[in-house]
């Protein structure tokens, strides 16, 4: 029927626009080729492990490919932690300059300041889990760790940086992934970042500008001190042909959830937090600005630029929050028009329990 074909066209346009290779589209042979990523070649991996091409080039790994399953598991686990940081490990393999993450599993520890020690506690769990996995047919090794930063963005804190540097010394190849489940839900897109640290004392040749994200005031110092010690990798996703097929069909069932999701109600706390954080930042910026007025002769143009860029940063942040809020409101208004204006319309029978769009359970 028509909805299907135009949906298919829309999807293809998206995929073209984003230059993202979707695994297994048209023919059978390409389906087999894309599923080939699931094949674990023990010999090739062992050889790669011995060669250690990353030992000479700290910037060796540039890309990360995450499987649909790993992403889903990590996001669900991160979200289930609520406002507590959670962590887990990722399994996968390497492929040239890309690290491929096939699966992820959660670790039974919660994030605290002493998380470096907590990782030692989780070793037993990890060993057990890896053993059982190998028996069950998942042959990949642990290739990284992930943890969540609920509400304050995807970056590595001081402790994270030292943990990762340790990992990169002893457990190469290793990757650090950070997920922010709160921002994911609020923005409607997955907030995730993959990082590798530089070894101590290494100065990166040039600093590529990473995507800007707003950091709450109480964390911004931690962020600033360490942000030069690691770099971000490009993330792409892949899925098997069967996954593609199932996800397509899944859409038939969960379109109701899309319509009935209520970001305004669900994220009220987060929005309020962001706004108060912005208010504090503005106050800070104001203090700095008024200082510079007095020293306008002596102030180096450098400093002025920094305050300005702080104000522009604030502007950008406020724009972002507003956009998210407006999106939420748009959904509400659309639902109001759809379901509250009394007209001679039949209701869909597909969900006899009926969506209750205005009441968030």
């Amino acid at each position, binding site marked *: 029927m028509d909805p299907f074909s135009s949906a298919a066209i829309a999807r293809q346009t998206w995929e073209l626009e984003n230059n993202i290779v979707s695994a297994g589209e048209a023919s059978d042979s390409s389906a087999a080729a894309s599923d080939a990523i699931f094949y674990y070649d023990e010999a090739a991996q062992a050889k790669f492990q011995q060669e250690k091409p990353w030992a000479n080039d700290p910037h060796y790994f540039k890309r990360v490919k995450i499987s649909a399953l790993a992403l*889903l598991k990590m996001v669900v686990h991160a979200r289930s932690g609520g406002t507590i940081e959670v962590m887990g490990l990722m399994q996968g393999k390497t492929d040239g300059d890309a690290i491929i993450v*096939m699966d992820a599993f959660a670790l039974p520890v919660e994030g605290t300041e002493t998380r470096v020690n907590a990782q030692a506690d989780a070793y037993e*769990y990890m060993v057990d889990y890896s053993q059982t996995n190998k028996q*069950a047919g998942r042959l990949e090794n642990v290739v990284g760790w992930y943890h969540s930063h609920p509400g304050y963005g995807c970056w590595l804190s001081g402790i994270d940086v030292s943990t990762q540097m340790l990992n990169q010394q002893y457990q190469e190849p290793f990757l650090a992934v950070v997920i922010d489940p709160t921002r994911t*839900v609020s923005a409607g897109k997955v907030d*995730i970042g993959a990082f590798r640290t530089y070894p101590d004392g290494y100065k990166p040749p040039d600093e590529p500008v990473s995507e800007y994200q707003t950091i709450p005031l109480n964390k911004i110092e931690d962020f600033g001190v360490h942000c030069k010690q690691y770099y971000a990798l490009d993330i792409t*996703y892949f899925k098997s042909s069967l996954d593609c*097929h199932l*996800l397509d069909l899944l859409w038939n069932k969960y379109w109701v959830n899309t319509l009935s999701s209520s970001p305004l109600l669900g994220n009220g706390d987060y929005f309020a937090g962001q706004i108060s954080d912005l208010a504090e930042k503005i106050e800070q910026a104001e203090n700095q600005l008024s200082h510079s007025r007095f020293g306008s002769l002596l102030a180096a143009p450098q400093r002025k630029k920094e305050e300005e860029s702080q104000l522009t940063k604030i502007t950008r942040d406020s724009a972002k929050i507003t956009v998210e809020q407006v999106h939420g409101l748009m959904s509400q208004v659309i639902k109001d028009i759809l379901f509250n204006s009394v007209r001679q319309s039949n209701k869909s029978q597909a969900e006899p329990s009926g969506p209750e769009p205005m009441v968030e359970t």
Partner: protein
Amino acid sequence: MASSSSSGLTFKLHPLVIVNISDHYTRVKSQSLPPHAADASSLPPAPPPRVFGCVIGVQRGRTVEIFNSFELLYDPSTHSLDRAFLEKKQELYKKVFPNFYILGWYSTGSDAQESDMVIHKALMDINESPVYVLLNPSINPAQKDLPITIYESELHVIDGIPQLIFVRSSYTIETVEAERISVDHVAHLKPSDGGSAATQLAAHLTGIHSAIKMLNSRIRVLHHYLLAMQKGDIPCENSLLRQVSSLLRRLPAIESEKFQDDFLMDYNDTLLITYLAMFTNCTSTMNELVDKFNTAYDRHSRRGGRTAFI
């Protein structure tokens, strides 16, 4: 073997389980067919291997919600699942997800088979009424429905002998918001970073648009059905008519005074936020303007800050 279930339990399935099973199957399949050796033309397709595993989740009253799953070892000689392995895995999962219990098991294939009943019975000592989730891994582009069936076991008297047989149950897909977003993300391969505000807006509205289109198409189907019933092409089914009429009465969804107030309050809050953001934007631009002015005209002014700008 499959008739409709009458146990009255409602099943809710999370997409994570579906992706889990699919991934398990793809993995085993590709491991048994090394890509270098596989030659699509010469090699006859081997029968796809069956994979087995366990599903875990929560059961609250009559609702069974399946959240997650993990793999299990199958012993083809004894037709049973490796019990020690199951318990070990269960322990591990209990540590991370203490709320989840074993609800049943899963497998791939096109239909439930006799040997499955043996496995099913073996699990009955963990959970007295396990569920069996069956995924059909054959990709059929003409299919419109999810190839997943959930079976329960029921005691039926057949030929005078009480036997356990599999009966089908219906299920709904349940997601948490984060799950929905990531499934959406992977399904439609949206750009991983925000892109411009325009792209974000387009993405958001496209999502809602597709959902509304779905709703519309379902309504049309219903409409045609009712028209046909009115014309007399299809025999009148009173239970269906009752359902439709009760659904109609649910519109409008909410119509109270309080709701209108709250709704308008939310609306005004959003407008206020927009106003504040514009305000901040203007302030920032003005600040830049003033600084530029200062730099251009104030170069030689003496100390004392607020000298020569407007």
